[in-house]
């Protein structure tokens, strides 16, 4: 019961802090034309550790927070991060289970797909977008920065999610026969 209540609270707190840090700090970190995306990294860790449902819900909430804080079109980031969170969660539940490289693969693929998705959505909404800037100038540095931050963010999120939560699993066994 405690776990049922505590898990969403911890996930919500992680997403909130990540979104605030992203819009105030990390968005202005420009290294070789790319900016790290700590919201996506936090979402990746949550989705891998807690599955596709948590991933999708956390992605939706994170997107709403980012769009609200930046006064951008509501729903754009939510749509992208919901799909990203769900996909990463499914990957973690299936082929990525217990694989050491799963966080890195998830981050690399999700960063590229979210960037392409954002370009497509902004184009569809009539925003002025430059595919050259988004895909040629910014994408590679962004993937590299995200990969650099993957391990620390994943470790931090895993530590927070494990905090004050009893381990999952059977506490007693009943012998049959």
């Amino acid at each position, binding site marked *: 019961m405690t776990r049922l209540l505590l898990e969403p609270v911890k996930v919500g707190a992680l997403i*909130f802090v990540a979104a*605030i*840090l*992203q*819009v*105030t*700090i990390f*968005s*202005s*970190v*420009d290294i070789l*034309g790319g*900016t790290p995306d700590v919201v996506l990294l936090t979402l990746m860790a949550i989705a891998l550790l807690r599955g*596709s*449902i948590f991933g*999708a*819900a956390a*992605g*939706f909430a994170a*997107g709403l*927070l*980012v*769009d*609200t*804080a*930046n*006064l*951008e*079109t*509501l*729903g*754009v*980031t*939510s*749509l992208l991060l*919901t*799909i990203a*969170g*769900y996909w990463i969660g499914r990957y973690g539940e299936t082929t990525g289970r217990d694989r050491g490289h799963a966080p890195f693969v998830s981050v690399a693929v999700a960063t590229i797909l979210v960037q392409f998705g*954002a*370009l497509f*959505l*902004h184009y569809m*909404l009539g*925003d*002025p*977008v*430059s595919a050259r*800037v*988004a895909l040629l*100038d*910014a994408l590679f540095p962004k993937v590299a920065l995200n990969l650099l931050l993957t391990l620390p963010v994943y470790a931090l999120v895993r530590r927070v999610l494990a905090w004050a939560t009893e381990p999952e699993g059977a506490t007693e066994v009943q012998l049959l026969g």
Partner: protein
Amino acid sequence: MAGVLVFVSIVLITIYFREPSGGSLHGIQSGGAAVLRPFEVGAERVARPFRDAYGWFAGLVHAKSENARLRGEVDRLSQQVIANQTAARENADLKRQLHYVGTTAFPSGYDYVATPVIARPPSEFQQQVDIAAGLTKGIRKNDVVVNKDGLVGLVTQVAHDTAQVTLLTDPTLKVPALDLTTKATGVVAHGQGPGTLILDRVLKSQTVRSGEWMVTAGWKSEGLKSLYPKGIPIGVVTGASLTDLSLYWDIQLRPRVDFGSLQNVLVLVPKTRQR
């Protein structure tokens, strides 16, 4: 579950995109932004020393390839304690803004709202920043934003306590401009590279040379007038060329404002406006 959230996201995009700027979703977003603002301001204050420290080290690396003047500047800066430097820099920045307000270069007929920048562009698609002042300070859509160096951009969205400023480097902004020396006129727009500007629509019959300053033209015509007051510095001409086939000059500008390190800005508010 995920399908429902995707559907809700698409519904949100559709409603937000179709409703007017005073619609219910915009109102909810404005309220949400007001709730998030204290957290953003808090995070900004906590991060500022680290940001300055990062900037200091980045500047140090850059200075190695610069001349002796910049080396001297780095040496001088290295003697300061980073925490004190943070406060001193902010103080100096605000003083420069106030000094600019007191000079004749400040547009007449306007008051100003001094405000810090609290959020930067979330991705490469946007050339906007968010500022910590909105409707309550008398700011409205299409108000002009400047700093001590010159034109920064235009207010494009306003909420209760915050507003979005579209920077001069955004493809959507076009600013009528005037050459201070030759009085040639044209339209400033974003250039090909990030952070660069061009001056378009300058007829061959006019004269433009490298090194000349461009300011806002501030035209008036038959009851209409430019959004931008006259005489706000925009940038300096870095290159001007002509070809036989083109109707206009091909002119590149270097913006006077450093859009990568905006910390405080002034929003120009007409004195005639009820606040």
